[in-house]
């Protein structure tokens, strides 16, 4: 790093030390780091999705996907997660424009939608298990439960995050930029939603094409 760049960097960190942490790139450190984390999560889900696709249609014994899938449950839970992305973006909008009630309301609505998505998944897993689909039973079971289970875990962590965020936000405990804090929670939430967009397509939708 050149001397001038170091000074530039130094100048920014001293003036904005309390509220922002701008990297030499001119963007917020935390947000940049979070995007890099999301990038790494692409690899995480990429490996699970790649495995699922590699084993797809190769189970020697059932139950096969169409033996257990329930289109009603899947459709409703997919819409719920999609709409939770909408409420999340409204929460971020509220936080960015200083509308505290709007922020807290939509954070809670998002958490509630996320929790019901997890609830649907618990119902679905339970239903599938009783249909004979187990983690060890066949390739479909192993790869399906691993992929959707890790996604569900991401959603559950997101719900916890949103609830804690709401509480802290309401109490005024968030140090620094409140809007940024809500925005980063939002980035995580939207990421979980786009992962589901992919899973919904390859795991469910593709089974119904000719």
């Amino acid at each position: 790093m050149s001397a001038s760049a170091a000074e530039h960097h130094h100048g920014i960190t001293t003036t904005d030390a309390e509220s922002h942490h701008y990297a030499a790139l001119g963007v917020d450190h935390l947000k940049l780091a979070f995007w890099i984390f999301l990038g790494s999560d692409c690899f995480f889900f990429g490996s699970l999705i790649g495995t699922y696709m590699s084993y797809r249609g190769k189970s020697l014994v059932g139950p096969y996907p169409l033996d257990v899938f329930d289109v009603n449950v899947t459709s409703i839970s997919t819409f719920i997660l999609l709409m939770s992305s909408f409420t999340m973006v409204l929460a971020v909008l509220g936080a960015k424009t200083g509308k505290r009630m709007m922020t807290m309301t939509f954070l809670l609505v998002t958490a509630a939608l996320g929790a019901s998505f997890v609830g649907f998944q618990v119902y679905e897993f339970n239903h599938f298990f009783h249909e004979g689909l187990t983690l060890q039973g066949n390739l479909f079971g192993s790869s399906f439960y691993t992929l959707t289970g890790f996604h569900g875990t991401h959603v559950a962590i997101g719900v916890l995050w949103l609830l804690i965020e709401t509480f802290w936000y309401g109490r005024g405990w968030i140090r620094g930029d409140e809007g940024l804090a809500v925005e980063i929670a939002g980035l995580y939430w939207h990421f979980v939603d786009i992962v589901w967009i992919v899973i919904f397509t390859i795991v469910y939708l593709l089974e119904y094409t000719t």
Partner: protein
Amino acid sequence: MSASHGHEDHEEHKHHSWVFYTIIAVILGVITFIELGPLFEWFDLPAAALIALSVLKFFAVVAFFMHLWDDPPVFTQMFVAPLVGGLLMVTVLMVLFHTFRPGAFDDSVAVVERYGDIYNKPCNSWLRSHRTQRLYCASPPLDKNRVAYLGYTKIDADKNGVLDPIEMPIIKEIDDGGLGDEFNALGSEEERIAFLTEKGKELYALNCQSCHQENGQGVSGQYPPLAGSDYEGFQTAEGHATIVLKGLNGKIVVKGEEYNGAMSAYSGLLTDAQIAAIVTYERNAWGNNEGWIAPAQVAALR
């Protein structure tokens, strides 16, 4: 990104209105609604269309809900680079596992032509296991009432996923390398038993060992042991051979432990001599001393 971009620019960053977000949400909802068409049998959509629609949704969320469209490009770079890497990894895995070429396996066409009259179950692609040389359907057609193939087990949709044994067609063409002739050429009973036991050990490793294990102990709770088995079907060599021929499904108790699984039927996959060899080996290995069975006796059990 210019060096002057900093705190001030960040504060002035424009926000979309809730109207904008609502429009995006409605678009996402409509796309999802279209995707549900094939699920509820309103209309058909090819896989390519479904993938294109989901890519569109993915893009809309990332660009507008996650603001990559308006944010400094460095965020996009940090996300898109690993995303592309991840996609590449998925593609490589799928290529390695032949996901993109159903029906294009080396022997698939030959197999369907050769066994078409016997294996008349539809199948998108046939596979031959390199390890066991057994055939199986790698990509069965998507049909709710689909039955399985090649004498494995079938799922009866009306029985809630309960496994039923199915009748296994006899394949005349199975080639065991003249095992039966070699057997017949041997004179004494001792020679014949020794021959079957020796060949049986090899065949056991290929066909049975993955479940029942090399030491014949099985896997507790999943695959019953063969060593010292007290299962009633195991008591006679004929009963034992029948299990290998026809498979076994449902609840059984072996050495005080309950098993509720499904064993494949091997009648269409192995010859009489091969099954006699396996049964003889199993009845004389791991401390077992339970007699033997000749190929002709196996033939009578088919």
